[in-house]
């Protein structure tokens, strides 16, 4: 049961196309599993279309229709490019970003039982990373210098503020400090999107802080 949703502002920006790419990916992944937000997204898109209809029309050049009809004639219709295949449990959107198998990604260890790897989305203002937390493992306690969006893909984790399961969308602002811990029964896989590097507050990891960079690419 999904309990954590993007707020109305984020859904509006997503529907209007003004949300940055990396956070939008998290919203799309959330919508895949949340019917309630899919409905709301659809309403917000309908608002967009109502505004679109109200615009004053701008005349197009004479002959533009003929140009379009000619191009329809010439250009072959594209085949549906959403490729099948791959792991059915992994959302196609994430597979597209990974561009190889999960095991063969460039994983880095952070703390005991936690691995992370950055994926390239093209969004230069947001880092987009996968986190693989082994059952019972935790990410070292940290706070944020900016905003963090988290989307749980598989398994579940807890922190001081709650328990989060597959499909949950969590937004955290700068002040929040936490040490997300996966449940003991299974591994947890999440997407994390950051607009500034984290700051470790765990004394063992604090020395790393000056070297942390945003891997946005």
């Amino acid at each position, binding site marked *: 049961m999904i309990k954590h949703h993007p707020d109305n502002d984020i859904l509006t920006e997503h529907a209007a196309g003004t949300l940055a790419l990396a956070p939008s990916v998290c919203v799309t992944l959330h919508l895949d599993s949340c019917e309630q937000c899919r409905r709301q997204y659809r309403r917000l898109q309908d608002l967009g279309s109502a505004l*679109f209809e109200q615009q004053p029309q701008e005349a197009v050049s004479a002959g533009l229709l003929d140009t379009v009809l000619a191009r329809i004639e010439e250009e072959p219709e594209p085949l549906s490019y959403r490729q099948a295949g791959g792991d059915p449990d992994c959302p196609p959107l994430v597979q597209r970003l990974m561009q190889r198998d999960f095991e063969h990604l460039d994983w880095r260890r952070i703390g005991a039982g936690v691995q992370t790897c950055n994926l390239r*989305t093209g969004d230069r203002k947001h880092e987009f990373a996968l986190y693989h937390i082994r059952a019972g493992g935790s990410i070292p306690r940290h706070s944020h210098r900016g905003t963090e969006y988290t989307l749980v893909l598989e398994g579940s984790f807890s922190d001081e503020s709650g328990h989060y399961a597959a499909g949950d969308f969590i937004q955290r602002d700068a002040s929040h400090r936490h040490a997300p811990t996966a449940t003991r029964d299974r591994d947890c896989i999440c997407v994390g999107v950051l607009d500034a590097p984290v700051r470790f507050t765990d004394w063992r990891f604090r020395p790393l802080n000056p070297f942390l960079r945003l891997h946005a690419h």
Partner: protein
Amino acid sequence: MSNIPEAPAAARSAEQLNADLEKVGSARDREAFGRLFKHFAPLVKAFARSGSPLAASHAEELVQEVMIKVWQKADGYDARKASASTWIYAIARNCRTDMYRRLQKFDTPLSAEDIWPDNEGLELFTSVQLQRDATRIREMLGQLPRDQVQVLAKVYLEGKSQAEAAEELDLPLGTVKSRVRLAMAKLQLMVER
């Protein structure tokens, strides 16, 4: 042919436009496509020109792209689920987003269709309910105060964030946010959880 828009008497109703789009999908009907073009191309052009100046200079290219997509995807259109206008607006938003990114040389493995898939995964029954909401939204939009519509238009048509809208209108961000909230409340678009 001239650039003078036809008299409003020639305008087609929403139902007629939906039927035109279905005919394009099922029978590849070029006359129906011509009628859709006449109605929607000037709206798509306006939409292109209200976005970033970079894309505004390619407005008619966007019109071509959008209308070609309309032709190619029309067989997936279902008038019970969405009006032609909602369906074409979504294509226009997607194409405009991809065009911005191309023009800015924003290199990404994702296209707009990965972010906003066509299939919304809603049951037919739900879609029919949502169509009623859409009609209500359209009617209520006309009753909103001008300053609220102006802010919504900045976000949806000009593609601005609320912060950018505030800067442009020379208003505090809080004022812009509260106008959006008031508008959403009147349109019954606030979510309660």
